[in-house]
């Protein structure tokens, strides 16, 4: 049966080869029109691909940017938390409450804990004074002095910082400052603490 099938196949295929040209000479095939259809569709597919890839790239980019922003925000939050923790710590140890409230913690940034950056600063460019609008704690002091505590003997009331350096012209700026160890720390062992409170 297989042999017969093979012979049959052979006969038919040979016959087809012989007749193919004459048979298809009567049948119309619009090659150009078919190619145009193909070209159009392939072009569209490529366009879709480009659009999809572009969209994917934009999404990845947006995710990347939002990720960076998120990390940045987290980084900003981290020292703020440290400040808050310090405040709580001080409250417990000293028993002082009213003078140790940190109001605008989001504008305070601590670097290495020892140095404090504050953005919410009112400045007086004529007298070269700045006033800090919130209570800030600095646990230890660094030798580097950029801004000094000008009211050396006042503990509870307003503090004004005298800037020894030039005040930056930018509206929003950061000032690195150090307060002098001019009063007794409320913490045991006479640890160097500074509290700063303004009337603003």
């Amino acid at each position, binding site marked *: 049966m297989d042999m017969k099938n093979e012979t049959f*196949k052979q006969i038919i295929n040979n016959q087809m080869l012989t007749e193919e040209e004459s048979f298809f000479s009567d049948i119309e095939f619009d090659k150009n029109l078919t190619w145009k259809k193909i070209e159009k*569709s*392939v072009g569209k597919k490529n366009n879709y691909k480009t659009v999809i890839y572009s969209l994917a790239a934009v999404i990845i980019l947006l995710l990347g940017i939002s990720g960076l922003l998120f990390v940045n925000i987290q980084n900003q939050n981290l020292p703020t938390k440290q400040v808050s923790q310090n405040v709580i710590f001080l409250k417990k140890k000293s028993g002082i409450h009213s003078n140790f409230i940190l109001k605008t913690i989001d504008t305070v940034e601590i670097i290495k804990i020892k140095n404090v950056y504050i953005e919410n600063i009112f400045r007086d460019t004529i007298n070269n004074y700045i006033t800090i609008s919130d209570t800030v704690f600095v646990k230890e002091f660094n030798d580097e002095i950029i801004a000094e505590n000008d009211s050396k003997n006042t503990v509870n009331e307003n503090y004004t910082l005298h800037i020894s350096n030039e005040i930056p012209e930018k509206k929003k700026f950061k000032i690195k400052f150090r307060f002098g160890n001019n009063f007794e720390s409320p913490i045991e062992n006479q640890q160097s603490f500074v509290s700063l409170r303004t009337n603003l």
Partner: protein
Amino acid sequence: MDEIEIVKGCKKQNRVTQKLLYELYAKSMFRICYRYVINNFDAEDIVADGFIKIFSNFDKFEYRAKGSLEAWMKKIVVNECLLFLKRRQRINYTDADLYILDDTEADENLYCTDIFKIIAQMPDGYRTIFNLYIIEGYSHKEISEILNISIQTSKSQLSRAKKHLKNIITVNGYEERNIQTNNK
């Protein structure tokens, strides 16, 4: 440009190479399609769909030897034909009417002219199996897998196709002769 270069170009989605490939094989692919659907407009549509599929799947094709490209393309185009027939629901295979041609019924040494016309006159089911088995060279097992039918159904449809072929030849008075006699 040889076949390997065409393959390389098509893998890069180069439009000029794609056109070249189309120019080379469009006619033969059209003829395959026509054998299945017996309508030149439908065949054109299938050729277009087939080439679109070929171009978009070129990254999956591995060139092995001369002829492998044509065989791969042919397979895609035949699949497109089968899909077309399935969509149109033009084929109805039934297991109920299993019919296997007896050896004595089949004249394997049949010789006829106008074979394309005879194929065109076959019902879709017979013609599809006939095309797949006799012309494309698929086995009954492969056909059963492609068309999702049983091997017996495939065999039955082929037997019927052969009988149909013989009947047409007899009715139309096509020339019948024994190849063995002819070869002498």
